């Protein structure tokens, strides 16, 4: 489906909703193709080739809004979706702050779509996945590679609304990951390696596979450590998971509904000045980058925590009106199947100084965490207290030592942010907790519980 056809479908949706009786309407149409390759023991385990398309309509009437979506982009199909959106609005309670944004726009974001993806045949993609698997297997001590996966997608998005705004963009993404095992029996450890880019040419198969293998190997022989309070270094994966959670707590929606520990803390010191966090939908490498957000507000960079201070929350149009503020362009959509809601785009932890080895040396005696489990169930979003399962290695004499598992780390999020002692220089994109770019982070002290 061409981008023009997609925009036309979005426009037709708007017209159909207005015809049904809506005061205002917005159409959001998507189409895409994706490819997924999974290999196991040197052979293709599965290969898929898929195409999808759909449209979602928001209809506004008398301070109410309703949403509907469907996969049929014919005139009849789009008309049905638009009518369903209008009809469903009747059941909602009025909300005077709901409605289309006052200003629309599309930011210049370079490089969202790489033409390079087209040059890759299916066979080359299969070989890339096989290379990832081989690299993982080549790591000493790796007993098995559970899977090695390559995926890509090329997608197009179009938006139109009854205020005359219409825009669209196309993007590509490619990613690969592997999960490797090292050790045996009850000492079997797993490790994950990931990479993501705009096209497969920029994925480093060797690095992805090696990371999976090395992460697994590093944990072999892990035991439960004794409980202690000590400095903790979070690796980039783990730092990203925590930052993703913190980002979701900075949503103005969570704040306004009394579900964020950061409510009433705007402008206050919430972190050590060493930690700076921004939301940026315009970073050319960001997986969540786009010219506009889920309701057509132009993308931008928003500093969230700077100089240790909480600078702002993230707003969409509705929450901004409620707070007497302007949208920050953070109306996000999972897909055409859901109406826009406040969300982060790309969260970026500003790089600090020093390598991982230097952070570990600064920690002296402590814990290096490479994996956390149960973050979303283990954190109280309103109070910020958490206790999550973790594994990693002890830090002994300023170096990585004994592998450990079956432990929990506990603190509360603000205490943790205030206890940041160092931030690594090298950030990486991690697809956990949304889209986050994070370096390793040293926390001055946390409570670690084991035996």
């Amino acid at each position: 489906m061409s981008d023009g056809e997609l925009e036309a479908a979005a426009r037709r949706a708007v017209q159909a909703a207005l015809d049904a009786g809506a005061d205002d309407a917005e159409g959001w149409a998507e189409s895409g193709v994706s490819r997924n390759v999974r290999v196991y023991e040197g052979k293709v385990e599965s290969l898929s080739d898929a195409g999808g398309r759909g449209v979602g309509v928001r209809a506004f009437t008398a301070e109410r809004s309703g949403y509907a979506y469907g996969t049929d982009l014919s005139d009849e199909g789009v008309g049905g979706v638009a009518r369903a959106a209008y009809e469903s609005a009747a059941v909602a309670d009025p909300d005077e702050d709901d409605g289309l944004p006052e200003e629309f726009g599309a930011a210049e974001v370079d490089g969202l779509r790489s033409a390079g993806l087209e040059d890759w045949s299916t066979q080359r993609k299969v070989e890339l996945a096989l290379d990832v698997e081989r690299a993982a297997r080549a790591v000493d001590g790796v007993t098995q590679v559970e899977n090695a996966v390559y995926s890509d997608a090329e997608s197009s998005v179009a938006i139109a609304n009854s205020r005359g705004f219409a825009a669209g963009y196309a993007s590509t993404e490619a990613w690969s990951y592997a999960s490797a095992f090292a050790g045996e029996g009850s000492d079997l450890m797993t490790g994950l390696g990931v990479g993501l880019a705009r096209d497969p040419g920029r994925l480093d198969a060797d690095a992805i596979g090696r990371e999976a293998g090395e992460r697994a190997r590093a944990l072999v022989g892990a035991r439960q450590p004794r409980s202690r309070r000590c400095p903790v270094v979070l690796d980039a994966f783990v730092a990203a998971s925590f930052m993703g959670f913190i980002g979701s707590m900075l949503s103005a929606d969570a704040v306004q509904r009394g579900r964020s520990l950061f409510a009433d803390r705007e402008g206050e010191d919430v972190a050590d000045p060493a930690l700076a966090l921004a939301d940026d939908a315009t970073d050319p490498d960001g997986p969540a980058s786009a010219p506009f957000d889920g309701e057509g507000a132009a993308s931008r960079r928003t500093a969230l925590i700077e100089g240790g201070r909480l600078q702002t929350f993230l707003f969409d149009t509705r929450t901004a009106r409620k707070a007497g503020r302007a949208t920050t362009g953070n109306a996000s959509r999972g897909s055409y199947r859901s109406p826009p809601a406040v969300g982060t785009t790309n969260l970026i932890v500003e790089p600090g100084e020093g390598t991982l080895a230097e952070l570990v040396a600064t920690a002296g005696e402590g814990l290096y965490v490479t994996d956390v489990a149960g973050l979303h169930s283990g954190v109280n979003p309103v109070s910020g207290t958490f206790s999550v399962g973790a594994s990693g290695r002890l830090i002994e004499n300023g170096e990585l030592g004994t592998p450990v598992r079956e432990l929990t780390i506990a603190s509360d999020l603000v205490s943790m942010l205030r206890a940041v002692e160092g931030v690594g220089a090298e950030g990486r994109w991690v697809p956990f907790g949304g889209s986050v770019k994070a370096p390793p982070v040293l926390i001055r002290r946390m409570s670690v519980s084991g035996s």
Partner: protein
Amino acid sequence: MTLVQPELAGRVLEAALRRGGDLAELYAESRHGFRLSLDDGKVERPVDGLELGACVRVVEGDASYYGYVDGLAEPDLLRVAGSVAEAVRGQARAPAAVHAAEPEDIHPIGSRPEEVEAAAKAELLRACDARARAAGGEVAQARVGYAEGRRRVQVFNSDGLAAADDRTRVRLSAQVVARSDGRVETGTDTRGGHAGWELLVEDPEAVAESAARKALTMLEAVDAPTGRLPVVVGNGFGGVLLHEAVGHGLEADAVQKRASVYAGKLGEQVAEPFVTAYDDGRRRGEWGSDGIDDEGTPTRRTTVIEEGELTSYLYDLLRARKDGVASTGNGRRESFRHVPVPRMTNTYFAPGEATPDDLIAGVERGLYAVSFGGGQVEPATGDFVFGVSEGYLIEDGEVTAPVRGATLVGNGLEALAAIDGIASDLDIATGYCGKAGQSVPAGVGQPHVRIRRLTVGGTGE
């Protein structure tokens, strides 16, 4: 019920086998859903969705090739079948003839939710909000969600299989926040089933009240203890422990890749002789039940642990073929956009004879974990972590203070072997289970269960 005519299905399967393959399959689906929520006292975000689509799969040896498409138009289906066939390298094969199939009526729907006026659903949410707020002055916030969905499914394969299913589910969920003296706690509860509106007729507001009670109770919570302690796990949602720590390891894909601690353990004693566990996708009206799985195999009850002995893994067609057994009806997928993988349906421990009080009375100092905020497990090692969302201390055989921030950390095999008591009060709760990027409705349940000793991670000493 016809999404795709058998004649067209036959041609799609033929196109899919154009270059050979051991099995070709067409999965067609229509998905209609409606959801509505109430937050901060206001009914909001009504969402109505209608999707049609299909997935074509060709299996050749250990490899699966598949593609999906939005829409069920003939040209789309034939195109996706042709593109899937491209990946295969062999001689064309003719599929066996397929016939029409009608869904079996084994999970009867009393009252079709889509025929209930939307206004009644909004009223239900308001009533829940009022009940939650009436539970106590400390209730600060309530969020209530209602969702209904109908999935009509047809499956055809080149072995001549033709099957259909008509699945309706409804679910009500409540999340309540309570505040007092700077303390903030959250309580949740849900009610759902493979059922119609009738499920929500009898005192649906009890769901909101129960969520509110949990939040209010937790306001009084003290810091959780840490250390290795006896743990009594609550019935209903407490079964998530079995689901995560044992069930995932019994899924045949993990077993065959030796990515499960349960690989090679069939026939072995993994628990005390009074422990029996099932996966039952046929249990009437249950949240994780269907008529067929997403490969057309009728759902059934599989005994996975019988009197302590590991008796079966959970299979889809592909993994069953590899082990030379029959599918257990566990080939499930989130939608036509996904390929089936072995998944649990409703997984639970069979009831024993004790009462919950008997189990608690035997504990000098321990933790009573009533419900979990969620959990995670590494199937390869069986290591698990669960956040306890509602928990209490057990002191001298009695439940005393509520505790907050408790986490259970352990290993599935060890925890299973350490079960030393099972009560008679079986209850099954509604969950969503995520695996391989797919989320499917799964029933988790059990009677009260006692585990001799588990690592409890907490914030206290």
